[in-house]
């Protein structure tokens, strides 16, 4: 816990993420004869200071302030991630519970093995296959996540389903697996035995356990997979031509648009830190054992 806390302190992550492109900034500064005389550290300082005040610099390519692009893209990415989460959390938990209730029977095998297989596949591979199936052959869903301007929430949702599916599949494997093992443990516990002996209906017993034992792993997944998820967003947004933070970074990297790149990366760093902290916090609130441990 303490370790995780220390690790996600914004300053720490910020430095870790900013470290790698010290060179580029130097090169870039030289190229543009901008702030060559100032020490790198001061540049960073000013830049971060400005960043926190909403001034993220000016894009080389668009010759316009970076901030609106980044904020817009972040909003779009969050929509995408949100759709994926809203779909995957209940379905993943359900899958895990069904697998646990059918332990070692064919249904369990299918869910576990299937979940594992899709988890290990690159997002663009599942993405391509999904596009082919639902977009090209069945023609159920649009293949690009570019909805008409001013589209309503439902239309946007319709366009977002296909792009969210690869994320869904990756997360499904993790969540179902953790829910499954949590459930197996719960089914085996004394609590369940007494509850069943006391004559509580199965349904009630299972639901109580599902809530307790499946929520925690889900939060763990979110906490540990955020970084991975962000990597996945870069790929999926590119594949579906979606104007999110991932494709923004990708375009900026290709176009060597450093202010845009830096702003994008720092934004991701902050999102990552916040997500981890929130997950950590939720976890400690929900899990009495951890809370006790923290007090010692």
């Amino acid at each position, binding site marked *: 816990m303490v*370790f995780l806390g*220390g*690790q*996600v302190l914004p300053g*720490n*992550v910020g430095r*870790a*993420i900013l470290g*790698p*492109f010290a*060179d*580029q900034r130097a090169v870039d500064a030289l190229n543009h004869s901008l702030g060559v005389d100032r020490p790198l550290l001061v540049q960073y300082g000013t830049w971060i200071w400005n960043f926190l005040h909403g001034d993220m610099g000016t894009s080389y390519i668009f010759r316009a302030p970076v901030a609106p692009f980044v904020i817009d893209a972040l909003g779009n990415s969050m929509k995408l991630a949100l759709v994926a989460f809203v779909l995957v959390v209940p379905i993943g938990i359900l899958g895990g519970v069904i697998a646990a209730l059918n332990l070692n029977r064919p249904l369990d095998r299918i869910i576990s093995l299937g979940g*594992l*297989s899709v988890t*290990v*596949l*690159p*997002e*663009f*591979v599942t993405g*391509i*296959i999904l*596009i*082919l199936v639902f*977009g*090209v*052959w069945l023609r159920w869903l649009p*293949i690009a996540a570019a909805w008409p301007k001013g589209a309503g929430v439902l239309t946007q949702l319709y366009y977002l389903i296909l792009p969210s599916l690869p994320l869904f599949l990756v997360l499904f494997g993790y969540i179902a697996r953790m829910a499954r093992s949590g459930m197996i443990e719960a089914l085996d516990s004394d609590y369940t035995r007494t509850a069943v002996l006391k004559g509580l209906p199965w349904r009630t017993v299972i639901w109580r356990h599902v809530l307790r034992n499946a929520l925690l792993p889900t939060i763990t997944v979110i906490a540990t997979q955020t*970084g*991975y998820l*962000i*990597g*996945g967003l*870069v*790929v999926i947004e*590119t*594949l579906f031509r979606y104007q999110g933070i991932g494709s923004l*970074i*990708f375009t900026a*990297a*290709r176009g*060597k648009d450093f202010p845009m*790149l830096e702003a994008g*990366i720092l934004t*991701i760093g902050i999102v*990552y830190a916040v997500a*981890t902290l929130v997950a950590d916090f939720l976890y400690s609130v929900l899990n009495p054992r951890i809370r006790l441990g923290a007090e010692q």
Partner: protein
Amino acid sequence: MSATDTPAALPAPDTARRSPWGEVLHSLLRSGTFLTGLAILLFWVVCALFGEHFVPYDPLDADIINTLAPPSADHWFGTDQLGRDVFSRVIVGSRDILTVAPLATILATIAGTALGLVIGYFRGIVDDIVSRVLEAFMAIPVVIIALLAIVALGTSKATVIVVIGLSFAPIIARTVRSAVLAERELDYVAAAKLRHEGALHTMFVEILPNVIPPILVETTVRLGYAIFAVATLSFMGFGIQPPSPDWGLSISNNYGMIGGGFWWTVLFDAMAIASLVIGVNLVADGVHGAFND
């Protein structure tokens, strides 16, 4: 046994017992998971090594009058937008990814093992600092690291190998470190100190052979991720470069047209990646199982 024991009274060494490695091999050969995965992997390795000799067409040969032809008896998987034979390209396309990903994995294993041995053995401040840095480093998605490194260093196979190798090294280092932390408490390490052995001898001769199993398991798992990463980077345009018939690269070049229904230009490449990744993961699963029962 009494006080009058003689050499004859002592039990002989039990040479019949299978060695731990024999044990592992034995359970690997009986693991369906491992054998299936191995078959898939071997298939692609053969394609990578000898594919160009048995494919019907040169994977790079363009045929401008026969572009985007659907699968047929002549072209089993159809042709792409330059009229190149997709089947031949898929077969030969295994070569680059099966060069780059294993090399990256080997790099990661060597660097990670050395790092993990050192921080696990010396512990203390070095361990604290390095472990923190590694944790922070691991939090950044590989794709992002790669993006930045490649912007800075330019695209080449070597860059991809180094980027993936170095971003996986911390994960291997973490595995090695925790194994070393357990090993270093064992008395044979104390015995080495009581012979005034140097740190290098203790780390590499005494401890290393005993932490090979977790390293092997982690390495096979990492190979799966390395293939994942190379394919993704190629798809993003930061990995293997044209004119290679690489799968990720081909998908990247052709997926823009799938709205037009030219599914064969991407489907087979996607399936190839999927089969290779799953194959390696099955192997990893089998190896993990064999070392842990």
